[in-house]
């Protein structure tokens, strides 16, 4: 059997499971996943001490949500080895607010800031320390970000699998914009799953991959930072027309040499691409262990401006996804220069939208 055929049997098996239950599911349509929040959303309030860790957890509970996702290097003291007293405090907060750890977000900085490259063993040791931390904190899923977003890291992940089993942590690399929903990134991990039969490797899709248009809050920020209106209008239209990111950057280079324009063009590469179809996730749904409910702007009628949640959420329902969808608010970086950030309010709007699409009152 060729590698391609091997992969096809894997996704076919996954799709077959979906088809069997999918038709029944289409009728009953009850979500098996739960709502949560990644505290990336509350980064500004946490940074300014407007909110403590407990305040963030209390906010999650106040929305009737259960999942708590944190970025380890943002909130864990003496990372990656916090004092036992702090870990106990963490578990106490989970109990007090009836929340559960959903996913631990970590980073393996393989290039050491451009100083030298980590060896394969060092990267595995880094993952091991992170999984030990995840285990101590009760996280069953960990999302490691490694080198460039588009590049999978199969060698280090495969080598870390025995440790993942030891700590019972599922490694879930992120499918983040601009990764295509069908392609090499996903296939390289499916190959490992097929080869090793591991139950400890999967995916963390980020809904930014389904942007149908560029976030207008981001475009507005670029203009305030000096990008020209004609460049922004071009990028907005080109994205929706399906013009690829490299082509867009090249086109803007012809229009302008101004730094603000080139930066805007480069940054739009972080959304979509528009060719990503939510239904593509059905092929890999059994391996999705965490989801980032990415959003940039909740409108007054409780929609996300760029991402068609009404198309994406049903896919998770039909596919029987049973992890957490954790709200990930990323709009603050586009608006914090001119207005007061209110991450809690933004996340609340996101949860009202999610509840609606989950069939809750």
């Amino acid at each position: 059997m060729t590698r391609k055929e091997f992969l096809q049997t894997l996704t076919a098996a996954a799709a077959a499971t979906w088809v069997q239950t999918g038709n029944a599911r289409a009728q009953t349509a009850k979500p098996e996943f739960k709502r949560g929040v990644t505290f990336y959303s509350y980064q500004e309030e946490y940074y300014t001490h407007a909110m403590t860790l407990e305040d963030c957890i209390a906010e999650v509970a106040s929305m009737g949500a259960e999942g708590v996702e944190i970025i380890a290097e943002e909130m864990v003291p003496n990372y990656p080895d916090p004092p036992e007293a702090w870990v106990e405090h963490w578990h106490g907060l989970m109990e007090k607010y009836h929340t559960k750890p959903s996913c631990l977000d970590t980073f393996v900085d393989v290039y050491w800031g451009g100083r030298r490259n980590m060896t394969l063993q060092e990267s595995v040791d880094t993952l091991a320390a992170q999984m030990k931390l995840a285990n101590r904190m009760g996280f069953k899923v960990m999302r490691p970000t490694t080198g460039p977003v588009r590049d999978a890291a199969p060698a280090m992940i495969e080598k870390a699998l025995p440790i993942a089993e030891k700590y019972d942590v599922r490694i879930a690399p992120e499918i983040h914009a601009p990764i295509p929903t069908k392609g090499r990134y996903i296939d390289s991990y499916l190959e490992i799953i097929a080869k090793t039969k591991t139950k400890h490797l999967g995916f963390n899709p980020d809904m930014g991959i389904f942007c149908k248009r560029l976030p207008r809050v981001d475009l507005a920020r670029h203009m305030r930072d000096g990008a020209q209106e004609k460049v922004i209008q071009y990028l907005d239209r080109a994205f929706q027309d399906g013009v690829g990111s490299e082509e867009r950057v090249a086109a803007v280079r012809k229009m302008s040499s101004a730094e603000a324009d080139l930066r805007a063009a480069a940054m739009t590469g972080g959304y979509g691409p528009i060719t990503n179809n939510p239904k593509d996730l059905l092929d890999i749904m059994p391996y999705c262990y965490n989801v980032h409910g990415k959003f940039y702007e909740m409108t007054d009628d409780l929609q996300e401006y760029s991402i068609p949640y009404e198309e994406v959420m049903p896919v998770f329902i039909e596919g029987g996804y049973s992890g957490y969808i954790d709200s990930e608010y990323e709009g603050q970086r586009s608006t914090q220069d001119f207005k007061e950030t209110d991450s809690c309010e933004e996340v609340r709007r996101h949860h009202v939208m999610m509840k609606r699409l989950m069939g809750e009152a």
Partner: protein
Amino acid sequence: MFDKYMVMTRGFQNVIQNGQITGFQMKVRITYYRGVFLPLLAGFDVTVDGENFKPEQMRFTLGSHTYTFDEVGKAEKVHWDFGVPATLTILKPGGLKPGIHDVEVIQTVKPSYMPPSGFTGRMKRKITLVA
């Protein structure tokens, strides 16, 4: 992301050694959304009252340890935590006069998932040196 919070007023002061002012200091925080191990900190570009300073003229103090930026590049086990102030010392004989100063600081952090140019935070503000 946290550009506007990068440089604190507390800690903006001259450095006195053996009765001489050898430079000035400021407390800085990371402008990126997580703490990082020091080699990810590429450095700071500092301009005060139009005078720009080179990395060789700077020292970085975290806790009780002071580093040159070459040493920062090798301190793989040292973590600059999110929200925690570090002290940036600029070596400048005579330091700064008490009063209002135009301070511009650009901080560059290089996480491995970002392109080689890294992530920059920029802060430009007036800070008053009291003593």
